[in-house]
């Protein structure tokens, strides 16, 4: 890590001419709770509205106010929206971290900073733009109490001027952000932005390399976070019972869902809700309610993060063993234990795949994008009812809480698949049913829903030994029969989980495998490897566990396959080891990053280059 010492730096000798047009990272360093969120979002949206692909990542501490926070906007004409480690343009608003932030920059970067911080003295190889925020804010915001907030909008104006962001777009973004009801606030902020713009115009000569130029790559696109995308997916999946317990970074998934459900899922005629959302007393209760509801025929769900999953272990085993559907979102954060609650990781794979004592295995979906957060949510609810089992949807803090550009979501074409449910009419016809009988050979029995108006509809669900007729048993053959059915069901799932995504290049001898939020970095790394090293690389992204046969095929088709893991123990690779032939295992190489930031392409590229060199 960087040192805080002022080290003698090379004088500014970079080629200021090699402009970074629509291809840079801008970071705003502030303090959380200081209200910079709005200013940052407006900045990002303004660039987005100019047709330039962007992403916004918020790195915030596990506390509520007063500690350092960094918001990073990446603009990329290539559409790379994953993290980029290097910062080209810094807005240094936080006195506490300003020196370290500046010292970390690579030569040639630009720094907008609050004048009193005197950062310009620190290095000679950067472009500095000091701004007297306090002086500027006073005239545009007469109410001293509001100044702390409005102050932030000034840097929007400054940055807009320096980067060439059109002020009309800043205005549009601002109006959108504040909404109609807060028109006065919008106006106040607009004044501040203009003040910043004007100041920059008069005070600075642009000499850094970052610029934006209008493009046409964002038309029709949306900006959203993964938690909202999952919430929308769940709503359009027709979820009816949601039980949850707050935990970062999953809380906003349900909170956003609550907002949407209140708007769109209250029956306009009767005024009655078509859903129930319950903040439970803990995760043991939330998963219990979700399972109770799933058992009773509801599309049910819960959302949590690592510690919550650990608490759910016992109940999940019941869900597995008694064939009860529900959907569990895990918005992963850095573990173990409380870990780093506001940092991202893919660390719950191995413990979740086999969550709960005894022989258990669970399907996990791995959406990688906003579009998939939406569409795979819908698939997950179908899948849970199709297979009558708890289904996990794994995202992480990076996907869940950061701002991502996406195509508008596609309305589900297929009707809901409610799985094998027998109605009273079916029972009349059949005269009865064996709850855990494998009539169709797919390991999935037919169920009835409590409330079905038929005496034959009833069966007894239990987590203790049961036979095909759902009767209590301790018999060896019954037990084995049922466990074999469950194992077989898992194999059936293998054929019905979403297929992996693939990107193949001519002549590739090596491959990359990654899941979920690693996708952005992995794909960018493929480009880097080809562009910078002339190495074509194939890419496969499993979208679910159990893995489909494509994975093994892919590996067999390559000399070496680099498995990207955002965790210490290479958990994706470990899971693959459990399923692959030894010959394929021998081809696997591990690329791991587990520092809590979203993984970036350079880390993958460097690691692969290093290992390839061996």
């Amino acid at each position, binding site marked *: 890590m960087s040192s805080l010492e002022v080290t003698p730096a090379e004088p500014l000798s970079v080629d200021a001419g090699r402009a970074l047009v629509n291809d840079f990272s801008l970071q705003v360093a502030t303090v959380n709770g200081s209200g910079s969120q709005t200013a940052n979002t407006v900045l990002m949206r303004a660039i987005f509205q100019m047709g330039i692909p962007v992403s916004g990542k918020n790195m915030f501490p596990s506390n509520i106010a007063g500690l350092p926070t960094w918001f990073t906007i990446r603009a990329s004409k290539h559409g790379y929206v994953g993290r980029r480690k290097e910062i080209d343009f810094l807005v240094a608003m936080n006195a506490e971290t300003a020196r370290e932030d500046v010292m970390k920059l690579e030569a040639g970067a630009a720094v907008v900073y609050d004048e009193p911080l005197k950062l310009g003295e620190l290095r000679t190889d950067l472009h500095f733009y000091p701004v007297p925020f306090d002086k500027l804010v006073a005239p545009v915001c007469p109410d001293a109490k509001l100044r702390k907030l409005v102050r932030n909008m000034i840097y929007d104006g400054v940055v807009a001027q320096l980067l060439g962001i059109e002020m009309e777009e800043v205005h549009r973004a601002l109006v959108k952000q504040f909404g109609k009801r807060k028109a006065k606030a919008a106006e106040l902020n607009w004044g501040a932005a203009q003040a910043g713009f004007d100041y920059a115009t008069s005070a600075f000569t642009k000499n850094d390399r970052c610029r934006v130029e209008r493009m046409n790559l964002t038309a029709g696109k949306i900006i959203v976070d993964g938690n909202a995308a999952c919430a929308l997916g769940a709503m359009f999946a027709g979820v009816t019972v949601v039980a949850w317990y707050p935990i970062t970074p999953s809380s906003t998934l349900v909170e956003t869902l609550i907002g949407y459900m209140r708007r769109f899922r209250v*029956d306009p005629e009767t005024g009655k809700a078509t859903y129930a959302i319950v903040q439970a007393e803990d995760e043991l209760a939330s998963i*219990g*309610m979700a399972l109770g509801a799933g058992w009773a025929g509801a599309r049910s769900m819960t959302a949590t993060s690592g510690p919550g999953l650990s608490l759910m272990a016992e109940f999940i085993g019941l869900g597995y063993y008694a064939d009860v559907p529900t959907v569990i979102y895990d918005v992963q954060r850095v573990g173990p234990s409380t870990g780093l609650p506001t940092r991202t990781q893919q660390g719950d794979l191995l413990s979740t795949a086999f969550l709960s004592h005894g022989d258990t295995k669970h399907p996990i979906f791995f959406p990688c994008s906003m579009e998939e957060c939406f569409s795979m949510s819908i698939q997950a609810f179908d899948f849970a009812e199709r297979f009558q089992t708890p289904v996990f949807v794994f995202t992480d803090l990076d996907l869940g809480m950061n701002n991502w550009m996406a195509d508008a979501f596609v309305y589900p074409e297929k009707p809901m698949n409610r799985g094998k449910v027998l109605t009273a009419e079916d029972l009349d016809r059949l005269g009865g049913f064996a709850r855990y009988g494998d009539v169709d050979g797919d390991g999935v029995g037919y169920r009835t829903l409590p409330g079905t108006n038929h005496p034959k509809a009833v069966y007894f669900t239990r987590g203790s030994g049961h036979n095909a007729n759902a009767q209590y048993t301790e018999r060896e053959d019954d037990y084995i029969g049922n466990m074999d059915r469950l194992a077989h069901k898992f194999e059936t799932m293998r054929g019905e989980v979403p297929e992996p995504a693939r990107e193949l290049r001519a002549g590739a001898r090596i491959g990359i495998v990654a899941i979920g939020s690693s996708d952005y970095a992995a794909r960018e790394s493929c480009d880097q490897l080809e562009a910078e090293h002339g190495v074509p690389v194939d890419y496969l992204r499993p979208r679910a566990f159990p893995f489909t046969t494509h994975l093994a095929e892919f590996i067999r088709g390559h000399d070496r396959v680099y498995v990207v893991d955002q965790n210490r123990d290479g958990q994706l690779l470990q899971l693959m080891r459990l399923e692959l032939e030894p010959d394929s295992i021998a081809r696997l190489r591990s690329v791991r990053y587990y520092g809590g930031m979203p993984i970036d392409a350079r880390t993958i590229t460097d690691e692969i280059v290093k290992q390839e060199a061996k």
Partner: protein
Amino acid sequence: MSTPAAPPPPRKTNRIGLDVLSYKGSKTTLCAGCGHNSISERVIECFYELGVEPWHVAKFSGIGCSSKSPAYFLGMAHAFNGVHGRMPALATGALLANSTLLGLGVAGDGDAASIGLGQFMHMVRRNVPLICIIEDNGVYGLTKGQFSATADLGSTQKGGAVNDLPPFDCCALALEWGATFVARSFSGDKKQLQAILKTAISHRGLSVIDVVSPCVTFNDHVGSTKSYAYMKEHDLALNELDYVPAYEDIAVEIAEGEAMDVPLHDGSHLRIRKLGHDFDPTSRLAALAAIEEAETKAEVLTGVLYVNTGKPTFLDLLNLPPEPIATLPESRVRPSRAVLEEVMEELR
């Protein structure tokens, strides 16, 4: 869905044409003489006598001898026997999904007062519309006789060990924190338990029924305070109860002050006649005081401790429709294309 014809009545049948067999479960595997078995019998009788369609009942339980008992009554009801202490969560979820179910939960004292105390209390707080029977024997039957958290101070284990921690009183907890029908009974008191169970069936809200239910194998010895012998000595009935179903007339008018008629949700009535104690079952504080007083006298107060028919249930608070949300058609749970477009526009 059509109601299929009930099987031809072989012998005596109830209002809806079912015989008592239709309310039985599989053969009990509990010890002969276990209090839990008597409770199962009362459940069978009550549902039979009231003519409830068993397949509209959903039974929930945790783990323990007690929690096994739902297998031994109402074999024609749905059932979910979950994990130890977590009956409340399962039941809550299921009732959210389908508010038309008649929920019946069974918990052991280990379930309710030890591992599941938190869930129990939060269910109480929510006033989930559920009949919650605690089959209370003061021990862990299924794991062979360890003290539970309802074991009385000073009561002894079979091996002689003395319990030195005070008990949780599930009735006190229930009525203090939100349950709307709270009663205690004794598995050996057929009449009282029947009246209480029937009232619970008619009540809309959470009914907590703590039934002292002796464990003949591990807690029926001298020194136990949950034994048959002890209960015979120390059971103090608070009131005399009459349950009058909706389809019967309340024959005898009662004189003011003598008894109290509680009209229940479904038109039935509970008639409470005071016995000795001057006690108002609509006052939470009075009930708490009565429990406390009885405790100091080493009496076990049974009867109806609290009833409140006016409080909204958890389902009311959630503004649920009358029909089960679990099975609403796609058209009512998947918003339209226009809605998606509206949201997309906001995000653009």
